[in-house]
């Protein structure tokens, strides 16, 4: 600071949240004696309008040139207070937050003297920092107007359509040969019982026809570099060995193909050929040759599909295409998988053919499924007369499986039981449940209808084991309400398998530098207030990759992520945090050690033999500053001097 520091310290009571533990008045009285502090006060709610006005007035009346707000975490109100300080004519970086709530008053109890002492130390450190802060202005930069959407389930479809409608170009990348995701596999949707494909496929077609959307199916994001507004992305478009423009969907190739493999779309209940289309309404509307299953893409070994194709669409010479594009924003909609069946040994899953998961049952119910919508069990094709549905299979079981609730299983199990009873009116449906969670519009009414009108027997209790006895699947469980052990001989058992993040989540999080929560779902920037944003600027979340959710929530989040992306892309320029590294050329020896430390390629040794920082690329981590052997690099507003003085203020007596 050029002129002598005049720091004001404003201590927030946060009602009783801080004042209940920390002696706020005492703090204000003590901090005024600290070097360069010329004003201090405490107030009930510093973030309120009167609270902010106190700061603005004091800046003017007391001629302050630095402000400390000792309050909640900077993640809550740093922006609020910096804006207030700016309104009073100071640079926003003349304001620092001393976090004395989350990191002090909320975690310490006792007689109050210890938390008060700690709060004082935190404030002193902040004073030392703010008085050395330099004024900074945001760095302006250009950005790409394009948006990348990763994942073509209903979340990605909705997001892509919304962004495209706003006038921005979109590239939608889907790893499977078709978009549609899990929603395309579902029979009907709860609680309205709309046919899932019937409401989804028009949207899929819309994606395909939209002039602003480029659909890249059977593709994967290989590499991402850059930063908000300017992501450079490499996408691999895998070969389908079929020209989609030429393919007329006659199906002759499929008829002659000699190779049978498990059909993923039908969840392994049927087989498909090595050359196949996932389902009739698939988008892109074309066949895909599965190169792993194919006899070898070698015309000498087998070329039946190519021989029979009148349209000459089969092309064994295709290879991966790599596309590099610049994007301003990225929407991550990688969706979910089901908890692996290998882990459900106690329910015989994977061991008995007639123990299936919810998605397999969806395929059995679906008019486009392997049984054309008739409920027939996998082992022998018989219509099952006793069906047991097991909820929370792999969910809410912290000892053995996942501890969280998968959110949608109560509802889809009720739907399954209802549709089963409609298909097999003389059959018996039993549902084992821990609790029924039907929080959603018209959801509870749906559950009641299933329980009362469809005569589905709900049994409160967990299933302990399952074994094949005399050709039946014997299910041992509890009916806690009757207080009885239950034994049911079932023909078919449907497990409401836990929802887990899709297998790409981990890889995607690495490539995009995203955080994952403890269960592997993407971690949003704030669980309540920024649910669709990631902590990486310009990257947004849509759908079940961020946490289990049903279709309405997924579509809402798709639109939410799109709105956030549009908000960002519609700005003429983006501003970059000015807290970057600067070089003291007198100290720099040009050794270049900093270059290898920088994860953003923001440093180079220039023609004058000294390090130079690209302020647009620098993200301000400060790693290079700590690694510089001559102390030539320093991170603005977190310099070595600032850290040293903060340490001294916080630890010294």
């Amino acid at each position, binding site marked *: 600071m050029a002129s002598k520091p005049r720091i004001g310290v404003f201590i927030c009571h946060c009602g009783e949240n801080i004042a209940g533990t920390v002696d706020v008045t005492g703090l204000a009285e003590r901090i005024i004696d600290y070097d360069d502090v010329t004003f201090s006060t405490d107030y009930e709610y510093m973030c309120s309008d009167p609270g902010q006005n106190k700061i603005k007035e004091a800046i003017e009346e007391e001629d302050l040139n630095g402000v400390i707000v000792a309050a909640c*975490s*900077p*993640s809550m109100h740093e922006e609020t207070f910096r804006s207030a300080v700016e309104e009073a004519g100071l640079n926003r970086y003349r304001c620092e937050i001393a*976090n004395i*709530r*989350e*990191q*002090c008053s*909320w*975690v*310490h*109890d*006792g007689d109050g003297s*210890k*938390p008060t*002492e*700690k709060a004082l*130390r*935190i404030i002193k*450190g902040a004073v030392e920092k703010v008085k050395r802060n330099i004024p900074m202005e945001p760095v302006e930069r250009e950005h790409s107007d394009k948006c990348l959407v990763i994942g073509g389930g209903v979340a990605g479809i909705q997001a892509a359509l919304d962004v495209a409608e706003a006038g921005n170009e979109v590239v939608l990348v889907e790893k499977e040969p078709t978009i549609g995701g899990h929603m395309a596999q579902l029979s009907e949707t709860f609680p309205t019982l709309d046919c899932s494909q019937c409401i989804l496929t028009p949207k899929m077609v819309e994606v395909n026809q939209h002039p602003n959307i480029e659909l890249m199916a059977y593709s994967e994001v290989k590499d991402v570099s850059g930063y908000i507004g300017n992501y450079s992305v490499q996408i691999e478009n895998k070969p389908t060995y079929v020209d989609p423009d030429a393919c007329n969907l006659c199906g002759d190739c499929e008829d002659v193909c000699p190779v049978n493999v498990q059909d993923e779309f039908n969840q392994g209940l049927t087989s498909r050929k090595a050359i196949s289309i996932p389902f009739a309404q698939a988008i892109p509307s074309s066949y895909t040759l599965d190169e792993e299953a194919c006899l070898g893409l070698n015309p000498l070994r087998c070329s039946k599909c190519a021989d029979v194709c009148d349209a000459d669409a089969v092309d064994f010479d295709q290879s991966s295409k790599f596309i590099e594009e610049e994007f301003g924003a990225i929407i991550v909609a990688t969706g979910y998988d089901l908890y692996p069946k290998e882990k459900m040994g106690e329910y015989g899953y994977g061991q008995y053919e007639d123990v299936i998961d919810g998605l397999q049952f969806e395929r059995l119910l679906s008019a486009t499924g392997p049984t054309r919508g008739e409920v027939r069990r996998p082992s022998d094709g018989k219509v099952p007369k006793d069906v047991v549905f097991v909820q929370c299979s792999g969910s809410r079981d912290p000892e053995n499986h996942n501890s969280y609730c998968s959110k949608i299983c109560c509802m889809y199990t009720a739907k399954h039981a209802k549709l089963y009873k409609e298909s097999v009116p003389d059959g018996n449906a039993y549902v084992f449940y821990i609790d029924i969670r039907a929080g959603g519009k018209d959801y509870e009414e749906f559950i009641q209808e299933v329980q009362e009108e469809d005569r589905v027997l709900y049994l409160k209790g967990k299933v302990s084991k399952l074994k094949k006895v005399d050709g039946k699947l014997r299910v041992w469980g509890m009916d806690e309400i009757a207080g009885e052990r239950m034994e049911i001989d079932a023909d078919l058992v449907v497990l409401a398998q836990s929802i887990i993040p899709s297998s790409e989540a981990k890889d995607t999080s*690495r490539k995009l*530098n995203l*955080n*994952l*929560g*403890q269960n592997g779902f993407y*971690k949003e920037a704030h669980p309540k207030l920024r649910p669709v944003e990631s*902590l*990486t600027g310009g990257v947004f979340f849509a759908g079940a990759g961020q946490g289990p959710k049903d279709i309405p929530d997924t579509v809402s989040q798709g639109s939410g992520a799109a709105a956030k992306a549009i908000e960002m892309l519609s700005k003429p320029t983006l501003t970059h945090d000015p*807290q970057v590294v600067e070089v003291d050329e007198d100290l720099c020896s040009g050794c270049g050690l900093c270059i290898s*430390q920088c*994860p*953003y390629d923001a440093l180079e040794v220039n023609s004058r033999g000294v390090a130079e920082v690209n302020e647009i690329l620098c*993200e*301000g*981590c*400060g*790693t290079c*500053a*700590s*690694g510089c052997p001559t102390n030539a690099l320093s*991170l603005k507003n*977190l310099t*070595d001097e600032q*850290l*040293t003085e*903060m*340490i*001294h203020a*916080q*630890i*010294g*007596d």
Partner: protein
Amino acid sequence: MLKSVIKMEFEPKLVGFLCKWCSSAGADLAGVSRRSYPSNLVPITVNCSGRIDVSHVIRAFRDGADGVLVSGCHPGDCHYTSGNYKAWRRVALLKHVLEDFGMNPDRVKLEWISATEGDKFAQTVKEFTKEIKELGPGPYSNVKERE
């Protein structure tokens, strides 16, 4: 007059360098979830654990700290891609140096604490405080063991 000797428990002074994205957010979560822990550790939030240089840790000891915690994002999760790996190496090196100078390397602790690990943050501070209490005052401690 009743003569009594009250042995005051040694209350170590600890500095915690917390990265802003993971560990400070984890400490915030400990607060939001009201996980209580001893008040001995005073936090200093930095952008990245990679910002922490051995000289900062040594400075803390020189100023009288009895223990220093450096905490960043889990390996692979660094907001800045790889700053935590730099911190990892620097702390490992520093521990060797401290040992050479006759200081117990356990006075420096490196811990990966994510934004979702409020419990782990509280537990780490609890354990670290206990460990340093057992080790006693640091070489430049300005906390006197009083009787």
